[in-house]
């Protein structure tokens, strides 16, 4: 136990030092106004190349059809659904940070909420492309996915978990986008008033809808933010729950298990935080946000990863235990096959990266080391991708009849699209940090020391 004892009677400041509001504005707006650094262009070149690879794979996919992938019977869901679940999972951190941590009044979320929300949107976009293209003929997908009156007199099947997914992902994307935009309105107004060129000014004036910082507006705005957080919280749970229903309502051993909903949600938060952590550490360094995104924030992110990682580990073990406890031979076979069958390497990659690696966060030294946090977050991302691979591929490749057993071998196009999705994600992130304020200006000003009245007695019935 180290000799330094924190003073628990004081709140840990969200922002280091006592920057004035205009200093904060300067710091946050600097990346937007400055000509981008050379590293930004290098980054954009790399992600652009990745995006190009994805684009080529997509074009070939559209031309040829999903037969270019490694999927076939019995493994009819391959990288497409693995990537979909992976990216939707990543997309959960943003809303979690902005909604749940907001409701729990965790002020340290302020510095990272904005770009975590942006990452949510980008990740959901990445996820959506896989579900759209895995339908095979996406140019007709609208007809299968949305309930609209048509001359065939048919409707979509509301009993199907895949249809629930359509509703859940669309709702999630819409609500996250609205949440993000509402948060941006005051910042757009600030940018409007700071703008030096007419074009910028016009754009920001339109985007800000005419916001004028009136307290008669703030009053409704704050309540709306609270209400939206209240809705986004169960929404974020419901989305990954419904993704888990895609698997769990079936009778496939390894898919049909009742713990899937909370287990998927925990996994989603886990992977989402890891991705936010990765982007966070780079952005913080590149834009010199060290005093706005403090070490304490990074440490707390690591703690949440430790908790959710352990929750996911709990689910792994509970599944295994109940598979044995149930006395169901196929159930037990699937789990033993996961650990010792032909895809044992995927299973043990998942176990190492998701359950064992985050346990290093028990040490404060690791938690507060940027390098260690960054590397472990990458491990978690890899592990969570493999978790979806293990769930989907290993449960399918051994069908009930040994005559229907098979293997899944991804093709170069599978990898091309995976690389492309990372390219899309990071390209959007790079554009975002350049053109929009990466930290919520109005929010962070409100939590700086001295930003609020020194005592609460002012007739406030807030």
């Amino acid at each position, binding site marked *: 136990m180290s000799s330094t004892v924190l003073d628990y009677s004081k709140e840990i400041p969200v922002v280091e030092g006592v920057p004035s509001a205009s200093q904060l504005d300067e710091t946050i707006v600097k990346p937007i106004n400055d000509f981008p650094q050379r590293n930004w262009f290098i980054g954009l070149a790399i992600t652009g190349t990745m995006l190009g690879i994805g684009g080529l794979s997509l074009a070939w996919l*559209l031309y040829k059809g999903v037969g270019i992938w490694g999927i076939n019977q019995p493994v009819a869901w391959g990288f497409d659904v693995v990537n979909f679940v992976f990216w939707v999972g990543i997309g959960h951190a943003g809303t979690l940070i902005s909604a749940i941590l907001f409701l729990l009044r965790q002020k340290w979320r302020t510095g990272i909420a904005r770009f975590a929300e942006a990452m949510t949107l980008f990740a959901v976009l990445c996820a959506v492309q896989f579900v759209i293209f895995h339908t095979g003929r996406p*140019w007709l997908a609208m007809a299968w996915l949305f309930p609209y009156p048509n001359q065939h007199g048919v409707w979509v099947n509301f009993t*199907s978990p895949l249809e629930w997914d359509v509703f859940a992902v669309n709702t999630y994307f819409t609500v996250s986008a609205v949440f993000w935009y509402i948060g941006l309105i005051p910042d757009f107004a600030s940018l409007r008033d700071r703008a030096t060129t007419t074009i910028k000014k016009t754009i920001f004036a339109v985007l800000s809808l*005419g916001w004028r*910082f009136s307290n008669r507006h703030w009053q409704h*705005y704050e309540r709306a933010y609270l209400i939206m957080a209240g809705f986004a919280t169960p929404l974020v749970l*419901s989305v990954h729950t*419904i993704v888990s229903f895609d698997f769990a309502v079936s009778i496939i051993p390894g898919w049909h298990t009742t713990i899937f909903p909370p287990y998927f949600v925990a996994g989603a938060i886990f992977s989402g935080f890891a991705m936010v952590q990765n982007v966070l550490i780079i952005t913080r360094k590149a834009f010199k946000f060290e005093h706005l995104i403090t070490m304490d924030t990074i440490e707390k992110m690591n703690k949440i990863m430790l908790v959710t990682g352990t929750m996911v580990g709990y689910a792994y073990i509970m599944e295994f235990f109940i598979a044995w406890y149930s006395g169901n031979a196929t159930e037990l076979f699937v789990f033993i096959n996961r650990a010792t069958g032909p895809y044992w390497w995927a299973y043990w990659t998942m176990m190492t990266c998701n359950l064992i690696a985050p346990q290093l966060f028990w040490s404060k030294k690791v938690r507060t080391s940027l390098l260690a946090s960054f590397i472990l977050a990458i491990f978690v991302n890899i592990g969570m991708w493999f978790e979806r691979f293990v769930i989907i591929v290993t449960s399918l490749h051994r069908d009930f009849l040994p005559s229907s057993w098979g293997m899944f071998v991804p093709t170069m196009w599978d990898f091309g699209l995976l690389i492309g999705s990372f390219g899309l994600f990071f390209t959007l992130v790079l554009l975002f940090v350049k053109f929009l304020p990466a930290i919520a200006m109005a929010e962070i000003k409100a939590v700086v020391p001295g930003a609020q009245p020194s005592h609460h007695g002012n007739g*406030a019935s*807030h």
Partner: protein
Amino acid sequence: MEKKLYSINAIYHTPNDIIRAAKAVRDAGYTKFDVHTPYPVHGLDGAMGLKETKLGFVTLAAGILGAVGMISFASWVAVVDYPQVIGGKPYWSWPAFVPVTYEIAVLLAVLGTVGAMIAFFFKFPNTSHPLHDTPYMKKVSSDKFGVTIQAEDPQFDEKKVRDLLKTTGGEVEEVHYTEEFLTFKPNTFEPKFLLLLAGIALATSAGGYLYFNKVLYLPPFDWMVEQPRFDVQSTTDLFDDGLTMRLPVEGTIARGFMPYPYTLGAKADSVGKLLVNPVVKTAASLDLGKRKYLTYCSPCHGNFGSGDSRMNGQFPNPPTLHSDKVRTWPDGAIFHTITVGQNVMPGYQYQLSREERWAVVNYIRTLQRAYNAKESDLQ
């Protein structure tokens, strides 16, 4: 352009000052005043004397609308308009409708809240407010706090207002505006705007037409239509005779198919004596016979076998089935005629199974009996 006074403002530097100032302005009895802060300041709502926002009711209403609407819609689809058995479950499988209902409830609640807030509570978008683009706005959007007292306030008096704001420690400024700036209203029926709308409509229709009627039939989108397969009654160079449709291998019969030994040349009366009707006249069999009769026989022989169908007069007249000849025929003779045909009548052995043909025979017998009822049948 004449400029009017919109408001007198004051700038403050700390959150404590602004709370004090807001209270002072409120206590002085002003109603048309506002406070501007770069971020929400705790306790300001109370200091300004603002009432609790009613936004929550909008949320509740929109959420309930979404939930009730969606579960009703899903139930209507599943039970009334398009009932399908899914997974052996009842049509109204309400647990399966919970996820979509929940999502739509959340969607409407959030969109309703935000939409109502922006449109009705804020009256946005509004980018031409007198305060916009003033030095005052630039200060409060960055790091200062401001109070405005509007000229339209009933007890507005320039000097009193200035004094009040000064005594609370503010730096006083004024905002003026021109009437035209505020009263500008875009004209909906402006030709340019209408032209734009027409252009959008045209482009959308043309795009939709091209997409659904042209693009979808171009490669690769048509690849599920254009398949490497032979359609029926088309030609091929795969076989010598050039036909895609093939005959079964000689000497084979389909499962369950009983070859019929007599041909068109055989006389109905003589064959009829060799065949015995194996089908008992039950209600089910007669019903089957009736249905088959109405499908295959009635177009020529008429609904009741009198030969009075629409064909009468356009064709060699189909004979009535109530003639003495047919009535005295044995069952087998009618069966034979149905099977192989007679004169212009084709055989029906490929359309009707053996049982069905016998059922038709029985039905014809019933019709004949009904048309020539005896006294005893009425008792």
